[in-house]
């Protein structure tokens, strides 16, 4: 029963048989041809055919997913029209007498290499596009039929592949695909974008070996958490079915109400309901689901799958786009949270026996203050530019995995240095930037009264706080059932954190899964949690639930919850509560 933790790429839950999909690559041998004119004619016909296929795919994508997705294939077509590329092909075939397939490979590859050397993710993705087009032309040279669409599967499947090009993804009908999981790629790859647009759950970068997975095996795919479970137990299956139902119900939650604020029915308490995001697209979806801001902007994607540090300019560009989308709404940006569980050679992460207790996140500051300083600089520049353009950017910076007051003090110094340097260069700066920490290590919760004066806010990361408080590795299935954020020990730490912050006039958010759990709403409202941060799609449901409770009723529930000694009792009790 292997379980693979990948990156969530498109929300939702799929349960069904796996289908191992292997892309068939066209192979070729390089040779000199006797009749280059005939070869060139064939190549021209193949290009024409590829052109026709792409026009059909563009239409198919427009119907299945929308204009934005159709544009992928339109771009492919533009590549085929490129006069420089065509001139290259012409020379290779007519003058160098190269066979058509080899010419296509070399000509496209020259551009793909040039794009890959630019390093940014955008160009990497374009390089993949080029290779996709090259494969298409080569297939046309082999005389593949004119109908490039539609694979047939007897029943709907979870598509399992090494990597999928947009052309692969679009081959399937929406009804045939329950979910998509790939061993490579990220949440911003084309297949992930297509999956989201088609409303298909997807997971990327799941660490499986394709040869270990057999087509037909029952699997569970959770596109919201990134978990891919092959051959689940009956119990897991039951849980997944329930989660799937809940998820679908949530999805149908009234979006019309999403824009309204989350005020308790007695008007005594208002919570801010915000989104956890990890990309520009997430920010857009957050707005659609009525987010009042961003409570957790994960920035790891900027650092993964590349060979050198993202430059400041590159970071500024991404941050700016998120700030522009969010306008004057608050955006809490979490600085880099990477450790030994990910291989990032240029940062110097190493395989460690306990990566979650190791050299990660804010702990890098002693050896690598430059990483944080660059990020501060980029964030300030981006917020400054957006502000200078007339939108008051409400940037809030948040440090992950803080366990000691000294870390906050050191980070503040680095932050001030970055700010002073920008000021000296005459760069525009945002008016006010809040500075806060994640409370996810028990020591930070226990010493919350010492941390509170040093920061503007706390954000409780309940996933890690649970793992560290209960000494449970969440990824270890033999013990993961023990990891409940409803454990009274965790609840007490949450209560302590909120009380200490409020005593110092600071606000507290919560950005773990607990914030988006409907069950926890009265508990967290009762504890007077100021900000709930969750996956964008959960926002309408949670807002709706908050509105159903009175502050007084919620406070009674919270008080009761804190009296129990078992997580199961807390859950049992909460399940029995109705809004009052």
């Amino acid at each position, binding site marked *: 029963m292997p379980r693979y933790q990948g990156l969530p790429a498109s929300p939702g839950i799929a349960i069904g048989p796996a289908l191992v999909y292997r892309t068939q690559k066209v192979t070729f041998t390089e040779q000199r041809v006797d009749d280059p004119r005939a070869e060139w004619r064939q190549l021209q016909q193949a290009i024409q055919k590829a052109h026709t296929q792409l026009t059909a795919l563009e239409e198919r994508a427009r119907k299945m997913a929308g204009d934005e997705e159709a544009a992928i294939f339109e*771009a492919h077509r*533009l*590549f085929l029209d*490129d*006069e*420089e*590329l065509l001139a290259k092909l012409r020379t290779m075939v007519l003058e160098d007498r190269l066979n058509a397939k080899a010419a296509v490979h070399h000509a496209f590859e020259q*551009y793909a290499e*040039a*794009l890959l050397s*630019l390093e940014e993710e*955008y*160009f990497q993705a*374009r390089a993949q596009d*080029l290779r996709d087009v090259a494969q298409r032309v080569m297939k046309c040279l082999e005389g593949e039929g004119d109908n490039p669409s539609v694979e047939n599967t007897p029943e709907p499947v979870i598509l399992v592949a090494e990597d999928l090009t947009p052309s692969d993804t679009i081959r399937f009908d929406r009804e045939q695909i329950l979910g998509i999981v790939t061993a490579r790629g990220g949440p911003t790859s084309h297949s992930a974008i297509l999956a989201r647009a088609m409303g298909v759950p997807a997971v990327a970068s799941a660490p499986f070996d394709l040869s270990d997975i057999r087509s037909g095996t029952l699997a569970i795919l959770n596109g919201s958490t990134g978990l891919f479970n092959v051959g689940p137990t009956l119990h897991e299956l039951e849980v997944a079915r329930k989660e799937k139902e809940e998820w679908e119900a949530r999805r149908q939650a009234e979006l019309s109400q999403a824009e309204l604020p989350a005020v308790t029915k007695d008007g005594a308490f208002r919570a801010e309901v915000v989104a956890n995001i990890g990309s520009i697209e997430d920010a857009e979806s957050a707005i659609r689901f009525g987010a009042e801001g961003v409570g957790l902007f994960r920035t790891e994607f900027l650092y993964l799958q590349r060979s050198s540090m993202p430059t400041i*300019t590159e970071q500024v*560009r991404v941050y*700016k*786009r998120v700030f*522009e*989308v969010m*306008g*004057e709404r608050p955006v809490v940006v979490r600085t880099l949270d990477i450790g030994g569980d990910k291989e990032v050679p240029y940062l110097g992460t190493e395989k460690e026996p306990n990566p979650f207790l190791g050299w990660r996140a804010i702990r890098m500051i002693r050896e690598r203050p430059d990483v944080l300083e660059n990020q501060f600089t980029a964030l300030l520049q981006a917020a400054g530019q*957006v502000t200078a*353009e*007339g*939108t008051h950017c409400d940037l809030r910076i948040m440090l992950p995995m803080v366990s000691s007051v000294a870390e906050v003090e050191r980070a503040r110094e680095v932050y001030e240095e970055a700010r002073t340097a920008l000021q000296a260069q005459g760069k525009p700066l945002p008016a006010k930037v809040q500075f806060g920490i994640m409370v996810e290590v028990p020591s930070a919760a226990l010493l919350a009264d010492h941390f509170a004066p040093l920061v503007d806010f706390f954000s409780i990361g309940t996933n890690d706080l649970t793992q560290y408080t209960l000494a449970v590795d969440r990824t270890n299935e033999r013990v993961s059932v023990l990891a409940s954020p409803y454990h009274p020990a965790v609840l007490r730490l949450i209560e302590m954190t909120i009380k200490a912050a409020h005593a110092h006039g600071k606000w507290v958010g919560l950005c773990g899964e607990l914030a988006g759990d409907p069950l926890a709403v009265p508990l967290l409202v009762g504890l007077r949690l100021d900000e709930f941060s969750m996956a964008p799609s959960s926002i309408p449901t949670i807002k709706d639930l908050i509105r159903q409770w009175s502050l007084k009723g919620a406070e009674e529930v919270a008080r009761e919850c804190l009296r129990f000694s078992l997580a199961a009792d807390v859950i049992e009790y909460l399940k029995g509560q109705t809004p009052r």
Partner: protein
Amino acid sequence: MVSTTLTIRHPAGLHARPAAQFVKTAARFPCKITVRKLNSEKPPANAKSPLSVLTLGVNQGDSVEIIAEGEQAQEAVDALVELVQSNFGEPAAAHS
């Protein structure tokens, strides 16, 4: 020969939609048009080739030199300047 130097202000630089617009505009004119990224060692690119423009890697804030030679060279440069200065037809301040 007509030439000019411009700074790209669009957040996407000369990629994606702006690149496509740029190439489309260049393709309307019969003259030879090249675009070169300033402060880089890359050779000038054919402004009518999307792949060549893309591989220049022009980002927001980068400056480029546009050179047109032949029939309607002035008109071509004017059209490209107008496109870039109009921020590729998008409002300058992004939506908020």
